């Protein structure tokens, strides 16, 4: 199944031939079995040159195949296959000649036409019928007999693991595109066609060069049967211009009477017609059909990314995202505001004040159970609130300050700077997280403590809980005069 959106006819794409697909499949099997090869360079190449996923997989396979010498292996296999085919063609030619020679005999005695015809066409007919029959057998294991045998043979003969994978890859590839039976069929039809063609030619040559007499023999059947059979078989060749012996000639050809040379020529024409029409022609037609269907199926070859080995490739060859880099390197950490220092100018009042920093609206404010002497200055959030308090403290610095913050939030620079500013407005500044029903994570709490310390707060006055802060504030609160007012 192909999910590629773009058309495959891009200029830089490799020809999606059987060989490239075969190479990709061999590589896939290899990688599925023994793990991925190092392929950074090849992937880059494939991504630059290919457009669709299929193209990229094929390009990658080409590059890797070249590196690993797989293409040579496939080339040598193809070369061997060609030699084997050539030998088979030679054998088929020879077989055709021998068959016609054997069927006609040495000419010493008359040729019995029916056994001769059977010897020349019988086996071909059986094999052809078997091929046709194979369409009726379960469609999904089509044409696997021969390929099973071939695979078994290659497993036995294989030299090295790659040599075994390549034929398997081809079989799997052809099986997937359902072109296996057609391509193998084309080979077998082709060989038969060659054999039958050579048979026909040999027949023609022998019949031209030697004298034969034709006859039929029977013990059981009547001569009429032969007349009918001969006419029946001769009907189609006759349409194509091959001669058919007349009824009288057929009746006379019982081997007991001497026939005219004309009658013998008619018989030999009839025999030749039968071989060509019933032997050669169906094979040639079947060959053409097989080639046509096989090629069409091959053209549909696609890379199925669901197969093991290809599945991992998709994210690498067609990534959906890519990191693009940074604008400029990060500056050294400026996040910590300069520590505020307590200005000694104004005489601090003996106040102890309570300030909340950026607390959520939902938080209970002021927290319950505070000593009355702690003056509540409210929660600081907006610009105006901040400015108002800072101005007030500037005029009237205080001795003690308790800052409550929300430890669920991230300690950001804005909050820390505000706390640092506040720190400059009081002699002793305590900080504690606001008690909340859902406790802040310990890591966040630790973040706050370290950031507060970096902002200039005294380590001893950074408390883990409000209760701790109040405990450490208690002596100061006892000294301080009671103030009821809030600003």
């Amino acid at each position, binding site marked *: 199944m192909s999910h590629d959106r773009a058309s495959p006819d891009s200029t830089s794409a490799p020809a999606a031939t059987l060989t490239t697909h075969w190479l990709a499949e061999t590589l896939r099997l290899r990688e599925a079995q023994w793990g991925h090869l190092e392929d950074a360079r090849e992937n880059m190449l494939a991504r630059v040159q290919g457009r669709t996923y299929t193209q990229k997989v094929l390009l990658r396979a080409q590059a890797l195949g070249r590196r690993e010498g797989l293409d040579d292996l496939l080339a040598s296999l193809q070369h061997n296959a060609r030699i084997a085919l050539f030998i088979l063609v030679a054998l088929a030619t020879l077989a055709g000649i021998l068959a016609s020679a054997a069927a006609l005999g040495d000419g010493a005695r008359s040729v019995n036409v029916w056994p001769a015809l059977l010897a020349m066409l019988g*086996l*071909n007919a059986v*094999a052809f019928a078997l091929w046709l029959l194979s369409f009726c057998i379960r469609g999904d294991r089509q044409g*696997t007999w021969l390929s*099973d045998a071939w695979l078994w043979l290659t497993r036995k003969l294989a030299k090295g693991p790659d040599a075994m994978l390549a034929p398997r890859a081809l079989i*799997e590839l052809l*099986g997937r595109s359902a072109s296996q039976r057609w391509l193998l069929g084309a080979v077998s039809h082709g060989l038969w066609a060659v054999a039958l063609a050579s048979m026909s030619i040999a027949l023609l040559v022998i019949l031209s060069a030697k004298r034969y007499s034709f006859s039929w023999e029977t013990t059981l059947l009547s001569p009429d049967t032969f007349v009918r059979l001969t006419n029946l078989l001769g009907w189609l060749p006759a349409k194509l211009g091959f001669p058919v012996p007349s009824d009288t000639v057929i009746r006379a050809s019982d081997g007991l009477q001497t026939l005219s040379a004309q009658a013998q020529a008619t018989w030999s024409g009839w025999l030749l017609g039968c071989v060509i029409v019933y032997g050669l022609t169906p094979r040639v037609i079947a060959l053409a059909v097989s080639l046509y269907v096989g090629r069409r199926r091959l053209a549909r070859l696609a890379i199925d990314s669901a197969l093991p080995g290809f599945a991992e490739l998709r994210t690498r060859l067609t990534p959906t995202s890519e990191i693009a880099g940074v604008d400029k390197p990060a*500056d050294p950490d400026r996040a910590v505001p300069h520590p505020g220092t307590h200005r000694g100018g104004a005489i601090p009042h003996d106040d102890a004040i309570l300030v909340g920093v950026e607390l959520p609206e939902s938080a209970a404010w002021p927290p319950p159970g505070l000593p009355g002497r702690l003056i509540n200055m409210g929660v600081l959030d907006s*610009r105006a609130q901040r400015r108002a308090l800072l101005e007030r403290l500037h005029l009237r610095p205080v001795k003690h300050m308790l800052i409550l913050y929300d430890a669920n939030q991230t300690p950001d620079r804005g909050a820390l700077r505000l706390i640092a500013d506040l720190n400059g407005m009081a002699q002793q500044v305590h900080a504690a997280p606001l008690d909340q029903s859902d406790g802040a994570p310990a890591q966040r709490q630790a973040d706050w403590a370290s*950031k507060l310390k970096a902002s200039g707060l005294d380590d001893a006055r950074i408390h883990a809980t409000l209760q701790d802060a109040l405990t450490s504030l208690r002596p100061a609160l006892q000294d301080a005069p009671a103030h009821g007012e809030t600003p």
Partner: protein
Amino acid sequence: MSRNNAVLHLAVVGHTNTGKTSLLRTLTRNPEFGEVRDGPGTTRHVEGAQLLVDDIPLVQLYDTPGMEDGVALLDYIDQLIQPGQRPDGPERIQRFLDSPESGRRFEQEARVLNKLLTCDAGLYVVDVRDPVLSKHKDELAVLADCGHPLLPVLNFTSDPRARTAAWREALARLGLHAIVEFDTIAPALDGELQLYDKLALLMDTHKELLGVLKQDIVEQRALRRHDARHTIADMLIDIAALRMSSPPDPESLENTTQSLRQHVRQRENRCVQTLLKRYNFTRKDFPNHALPLEGERWGMDLFNPQALQDMGIHLGKGMAAGAMAGATLDAFTAGISLGTATLVGAAVGGLWQGADKWGKRLMGRIKGEQEISVDDAVLRLLAVRQLDLLQALDRRGHAAQAPITLGDAAGGETNDDAAPLTRWRKGKLPDELAEARRRTSWSSMSPDYAPGARREHAVRELAARLE
């Protein structure tokens, strides 16, 4: 380079530690992007990433440092403006960028604004667990001054402490009505699509581009699921077909059993690895796990009816192939040997097929060897676990840092209403697995591994059943 004009530039902005880098990780499906840590100021520079469709960049995303000092920043910008002047938003920002503090106290904020000025739009990431505060409003005011549409992205919406309603209200008051909820750790299945939909509402000019991107997201997801189901089916066939024979004494049986379990574990691991890779996750996301894989089938089911039928088919095939070969020989001998070669071929072919497929096992049977294969229960468990993992991967954001924990799948008994899982737990095992059990050559772990079209067909069928 004309394509470059069509690229949509998006700046991901927001307060510090709200998950801007996480959003980028999830959108790019890349867990390696940037640095993610629960603390302020983790990202300290602008980092870009491209979203590609067919290797063509469509969207350029920029991760920016967090805004941390919004209140003071707005204050400072206001101070820069002389009384009586009324510059527009971008002009105000430009004046700030030209000011000395943009290189010092507000250096991080300056980087953000610099980037947002050149982008087509901004995604404003909100950690909805935070309360709505003045600092957020102030920084939004500054960001809005850049003059580009802002789409608030509400992160951590599935957290119990989420204040989603409060945020929606506050953002609406600031004039931001197109809002998208997108949890970067566990995004909704159509979360990305919603995000781009909302973005398309804000940016009419890029509607088409976003449409292409959305289509690609849907296709890629379907492809991933398709590939993953295949991977799982392949593993199941591999394991179902695995058979090990052992001498009958208890010690050897024990050893073979252990070896079988070992093989099964390794095979499952390989499947996990492939799934993780396909979904762009790493072993960190799903660390090794010990499997309760007890359960083996003993004895040879060589003589059960199905196996015998199978043998019949094999012998028939062998005979037919042999007959063909013999017939060819007959042809070459010009019919002189008519029949004999065909007959001999059929006999040899049948014997060959029989010996090749069944000989070893028959010999083993005669010698009293035991064959061990995994039990149905193990196959069920494996299927359920992998499907569970697949579901977890499908829903996992690439920003998630806690490892995946599979639900109750491993337990087996507990409730789970997902139909395919129940079918795998209770129903009949698929025919493909029954067939795989009879074919040792289908197991990539067996020495006589010989896959063919039939195995591939079975994997495909099984993958379809995993739907």
